[in-house]
């Protein structure tokens, strides 16, 4: 049962939730970070245009 917490830590680092990567792994290099951001921006642009309001805005 070691893998899921490690996976969670990795995903949280990739999501910007935690500042440091899990023990034993190195932080993203500037090149990798740039590519990752580029990938996210491409996904955002590809799916934009179907946007709806955030549900909680009306609360």
């Amino acid at each position, binding site marked *: 049962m070691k893998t899921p917490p490690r996976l*969670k830590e990795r995903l949280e680092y*990739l*999501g*910007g*939730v935690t*500042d440091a990567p899990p023990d034993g792994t190195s932080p993203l290099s500037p090149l990798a*970070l740039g590519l*990752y*951001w580029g990938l*996210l*921006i491409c*996904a*955002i642009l*590809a*799916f*934009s245009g*179907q*946007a*709806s*309001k*955030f*549900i*909680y*805005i*009306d*609360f």
Partner: protein
Amino acid sequence: MIFNTLAYFLLFLIPAALLFRLLPPGARPWMCVLFGALFFVYFSLTESGGAMGAACLAIFAWEALCSRLYRPGSMLCLLGVVQSVFFLAVFKYWNFFTGLVFGPRETNPFYWEGAFLPLGISFFTFEFIHYAVDRYRDKTRTGSLGQYMAFILFFPTMVAGPIKRYQDFLPKLEAPSTDWRTDWERGTTRILCGLAKKFVIADTLTAMTVHLNQADLAVAHRAILPVWLLAYGMQIYFDFSAYSDIAIGSTRLFGIKVPENFDWPYLCTNIAEFWRHWHISLSKWLTDYVYIPLGGSRRAPVRVYANLMTTMLVSGIWHGAGTNFVVWGLWHGALLAIHRLWSGWRGPREGPPSLAGQALSWALTFVMVNLGWAFFCMDLPTARFFFRRLFLG
């Protein structure tokens, strides 16, 4: 919209975050107030009734000025709570409550035709109440007027949270992180992930969740109904966690950390754990300002169950002015009470739970939470129709 608009990033977030870093500490709170006020007016005016909504900026000023008078233990603090609840009741629940007494719009002489909802009123009301109560309990210091107004008008969290605490926010406002590089790198990553969650997952699921209406439910194949409801459960999670990601990421650009709102809630194995991982800032607020003042868990069992039901009822009503939200709150209150009853009857566990036990607990929690979303996303007659079709065909 708001967080998924270029206006948010270009007119507000980036200029404000840069200015915040560059201005001297004394000017920062007032800069937050200025940008917060402009943000509130700008985005209020994009809504119907927004002009009146924008005028509600006066509420902020009034509450801020009143709160300056609060002394620990003073009755003025309680007055602060009452006036906050009053504003929320008038703006959000007027037609709902008068409708309960006088019937629907046609027969209700007090129906408010021009009713509007000031941007973020549900959230900033809870921050007003928190401040008043904590001043009453002498749990927080006063700070300057600018600092308090900056707390309320801090725009990344103003509209939909996370719900901040003044005693946590003030030290960060006074001494924000100076590690620009980490803050901007982590903040930008978080914002981009939030936007991706919103656009790629939440908005895509809308194609399925739009069918949760009476006409579509009537003609749909029965097997598709749980899929639509599950899609809504995923949509609301990804939508609100995306919002929280963008809000929290935005605050990082200022060098300020605010509370987290989600911690993998759909992986929880019981309903109490779920509420510790879902909309965390709201759950903590409800625990501190509703559940514990009612007596919390230190009363007789029946009273504890009643406290749980009351707290979740408040949560339901806070989420929306409709009987479906009341039922949604009671649904979760009942689940929490049943879980507590079960835990008490079973007694303390010896050793770690088996994998099968964990899987069963997870599946049960997941199903119950997702069934509950029916009351959240549909009005009561539609939800009733949904369950009748789902279980009876």
